[in-house]
């Protein structure tokens, strides 16, 4: 990487982006540092750094590793709470499930690598997030994914979809971690810049929790896992720190190829090392490889580390120290073991004797840093400089993006419902997720297709629920509301299976933060998450930021992906993903004031406009009410009203068991019937309840000040929504089930 692109920092010291790639003699410019940063580096090192040192600082202070643009903002997110065991800053966050068990989780992006090579990009994205979780000593129990593509009628998009889905499938299935839930959006802004966000959830007993802190002087440092090759030299750190542009191909690092089999070995080896209590500190190797992992462990543990680069096992011949230190080869873990741990104590079965290709190798020992020859490179904690680099607070007032509202000629509403059910925004994602193993591990009580996935915990009565969501269509109009509503939807999805939300993880996918618009979106997104977290009482325990998602200077819609984790005291008493029984009552609870502005129905008709309504206090009341109703034992089924509005929510409820219902549209003052049926808005849940309990439920609702409409009853084989439609459930099943495969041109 000789002519690396530069990164701009503070306004004052901003190098001209046009100078990117031009030959420059300045070593710091080559590694993407500004003049101000270079001065800081010289101060820290106390002399003129050598080439390797410049490269290491360049990688560590890249946008991807140093969070230059987002660090200060991220501090606004609430991260404390009674249940939080590990907050942001570690490989993953954790919440306490009680009785000594922690639930560890995090979401991460692999957007740029997936744009370059969808299959390998998505596969290595899964690999990376798994490592983040088992680096904490936790056994991964579930993977979730949130995917954002362009419209599916484009051949390139279809290739991207099948590459990404194939990569997730091959990697996750081979390691044997179930993929239990996800989210897929199809919007034009993602056509050339797809987003691939993966989340992993794991369990660990409190005393087995490991972190990257705790390395002690004199302890041995091991590199465990794959050999180090030339793949992806500084790939993630550079690739993810700029916009993808034409003509940069030459500069792209070679594509990293994942090996899920080695990941499985590495997973078992790491957990066995934890089990024999050999580990002082552990850190997976991700962006900026050994440079980042070693400096983070050293910085967080407050010790120096001496690395003999010559002892790192390599896959390629003639690698330089710089290449070894910056390689992003997959499936590697840095482990600091107790001084008295010998190689013999490392579990031989998981790595050494089975797969001689994948050796456990001791390659250095850590010592207290001495002398000026060893610069201390602190990961996120270094230098205090990146705070100052956060972009200024441009006071932009957002106006709605232009919309072209011209409703298509009136059609029969029933046909419109079928069309909507089959549309990419709404249709079942089964054609994609059925290539993910969702049942391995035998803990999946509810898998993909439900409002949230439910996992039991063997040997315990309780369980967890997990969901992942995003609201790019809303965020395009109002990034604050889009982010807040993503938190609301993810937690509401947990509530719809009967789980109490505990905490969230967030992945901020945004455009170029150097442009005023991007900076504004970033700040609004963070503030939206904060507002929703405060209102709903859920902290943020981990997360990830992906910037520079843009195509030819046009940013993607700001997209906050929110992964939420909740708890069920008795997992057997979750709300099942059924239609309910004939005779059961169908209710709508919450907010009935919906609109077509950011709806899937509107989008298909060229309508995309504000304002977006948002009442987070009402959302909190709705969630409390649904949980109270479930606790009272009155809820037979529940479904979140989301894409496609009430009409789709009712249809999806009927589709579950193939049982119909007879309901009447709620009368909402000022709303046209089509808007009532297809309009979208936050804070609505359809409940199916035992008719004998209606009065009790209404009392509960009144206590929480939640509005409830009784819509009708379950039964028959038609979805009848008076006075607008009556459709056979079988045709709904076909439209919803086959729509996406048809749109993608996949055999089904």
């Amino acid at each position: 990487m000789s002519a690396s692109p530069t990164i701009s920092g503070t306004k004052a010291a901003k190098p001209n982006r046009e100078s990117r790639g031009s030959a420059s003699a300045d070593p710091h410019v080559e590694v993407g540092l500004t003049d101000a940063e270079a001065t800081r580096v010289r101060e820290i090192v106390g002399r003129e750094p050598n080439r390797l040192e410049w490269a290491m600082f360049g990688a560590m202070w890249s946008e991807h590793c140093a969070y230059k643009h987002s660090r200060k903002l991220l501090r606004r997110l609430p991260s404390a709470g009674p249940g939080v065991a590990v907050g942001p800053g570690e490989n993953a966050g954790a919440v306490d499930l009680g009785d000594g068990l922690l639930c560890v989780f995090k979401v991460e992006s692999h957007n740029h690598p997936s744009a370059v090579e969808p299959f390998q990009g998505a596969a290595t994205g899964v690999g990376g997030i798994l490592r983040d979780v088992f680096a904490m000593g936790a056994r991964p129990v579930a993977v979730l994914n949130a995917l954002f593509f362009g419209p599916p009628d484009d051949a390139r998009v279809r290739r991207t979809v099948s590459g990404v889905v194939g990569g997730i499938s091959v990697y996750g299935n081979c390691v044997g971690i179930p993929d239990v839930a996800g989210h897929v959006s199809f919007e034009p802004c993602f056509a050339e810049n797809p987003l691939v966000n993966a989340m992993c959830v794991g369990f660990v007993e409190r005393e087995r929790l490991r972190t990257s802190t705790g390395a002690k002087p004199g302890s041995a440092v091991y590199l465990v896992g794959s050999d180090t090759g030339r793949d992806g030299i500084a790939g993630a750190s550079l690739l993810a720190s700029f916009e993808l542009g034409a003509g940069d191909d030459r500069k792209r690092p070679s594509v990293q190829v994942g090996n899920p089999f080695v990941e499985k070995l590495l997973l078992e080896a790491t957990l066995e090392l934890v089990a024999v209590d050999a580990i002082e500190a552990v850190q997976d190797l991700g962006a900026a490889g050994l440079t980042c992992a070693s400096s983070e462990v050293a910085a967080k543990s407050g010790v120096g580390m001496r690395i003999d680069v010559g002892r790192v096992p390599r896959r390629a011949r003639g690698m330089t120290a710089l290449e070894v230190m910056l390689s992003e080869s997959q499936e590697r873990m840095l482990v600091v073991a107790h001084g008295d741990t010998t190689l013999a104590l490392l579990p031989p079965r998981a790595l050494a004797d089975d797969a001689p290709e994948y050796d456990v190798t001791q390659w250095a020992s850590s010592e207290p840093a001495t002398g000026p020859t060893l610069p201390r490179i602190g990961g996120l904690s270094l230098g205090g400089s990146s705070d100052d680099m956060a972009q200024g607070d441009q006071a932009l007032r957002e106006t709605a993006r232009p919309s072209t509202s011209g409703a298509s000629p009136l059609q029969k509403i029933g046909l419109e419902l079928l069309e909507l059910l089959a549309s990419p925004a709404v249709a079942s994602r089964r054609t994609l997720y059925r290539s993910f193993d969702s049942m391995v591990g035998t803990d999946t009580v509810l898998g993909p297709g439900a409002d949230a996935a439910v996992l039991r915990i063997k040997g315990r009565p309780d369980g967890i629920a997990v969901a992942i969501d995003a609201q790019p269509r809303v965020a395009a109009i109002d990034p604050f509301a889009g982010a807040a509503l993503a938190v609301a939807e993810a937690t509401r999805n947990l509530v719809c299976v009967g789980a109490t939300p505990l905490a969230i993880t967030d992945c901020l996918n945004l455009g170029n933060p150097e442009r005023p618009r991007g900076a504004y979106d970033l700040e609004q997104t963070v503030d939206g998450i904060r507002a929703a977290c405060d209102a709903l009482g859920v902290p943020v325990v981990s997360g990830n930021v992906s910037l520079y998602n843009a195509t030819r200077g046009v940013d993607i819609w700001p997209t906050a992906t929110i992964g939420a984790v909740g708890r069920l005291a008795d997992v057997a008493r979750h709300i099942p993903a059924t239609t309910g029984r004939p005779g059961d009552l169908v209710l709508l609870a919450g907010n009935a004031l919906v609109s077509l502005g950011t709806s899937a129905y509107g989008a298909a008709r060229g309508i995309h406009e504000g304002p977006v309504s948002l009442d987070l206090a009402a959302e909190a009341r709705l969630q409390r009410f649904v949980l109270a109703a479930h606790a009272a034992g009155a809820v037979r089924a529940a479904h979140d009203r989301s894409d496609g509005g009430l009409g789709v929510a009712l249809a999806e409820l009927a589709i579950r068991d193939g049982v119909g219902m007879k309901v009447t549209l709620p009368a909402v003052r000022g709303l046209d019937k089509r808007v009532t049926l297809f309009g979208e808005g936050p804070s609505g849940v359809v409940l199916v309840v035992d008719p004998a309990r209606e009065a009790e439920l209404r009392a509960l609702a009144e206590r929480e000040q939640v509005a409830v409409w009784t819509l009708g009853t379950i039964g028959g084989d038609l979805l009848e929504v008076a006075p607008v439609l009556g459709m056979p459930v079988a045709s709904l099943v076909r439209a919803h089930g086959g729509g996406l495969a048809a749109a993608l041109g996949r055999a089904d």
Partner: protein
Amino acid sequence: MTRVAILRYPGTWSERDFQHALSLVEGIATEIVWHAECDLRGFDAAIVPGGFSYGDYLRAGAIAKLSPGTKELRRFADEGGAVLGSCNGFQILCEAGLLPGALVRNASLEYRCDWIHVRIESDRTPFTTGLRRQVLRMPIGHGEGRWVADPDTLAAVEAAGQVVFRYTDAAGAATADANPNGALANIAGVSNRAGNVVGLMPHPERCAEALLGGTDGYRIIANLAKAPHGTAAAVYR
């Protein structure tokens, strides 16, 4: 107590799932056995679970057949021990020549995770006693589950009653739609001639509890508690 060994290769991932499912059956004691140090003496049955034994590179199960564990498995099977291979276990048993045919890439070219139905065609195995003609609902999770064989082998396997499981619809009809991977003659599982070695693509361990959506797998593994101790050979040969 029936003593059941659960084999673990480096990339196996269903071993703990099987151990948990078998813990629900009265009268069964299980042990997870590492393939490289595998000694099956003293066990009544062996399970070869699902997973990606060696990453499934080259062909699923191809590299695993070289393991000492597979050699020991062959000895155990020859002496009449009951052996059940599920998913990757079935692939390994076929690669090792312990079962007829081979498992190749699904006709869809994709991994499939789903619930399917199988009809039990033979009760001449320690795992299907009393289940003949029953239609069971079980999960699958595989990318290389299409059972194939040359026409002579297929005819011989059918004639000898070695087809143990066949993909069907819920009513028990072996239709093309009910076949999730394009397997020849809808074959989901076969046995060796003696009947003591059985392989199937579905996952009985994933449906042994109502909480997980079904209990038909329990009916298969529960049979192990009734397996004649150490003398399966005499009964099934």
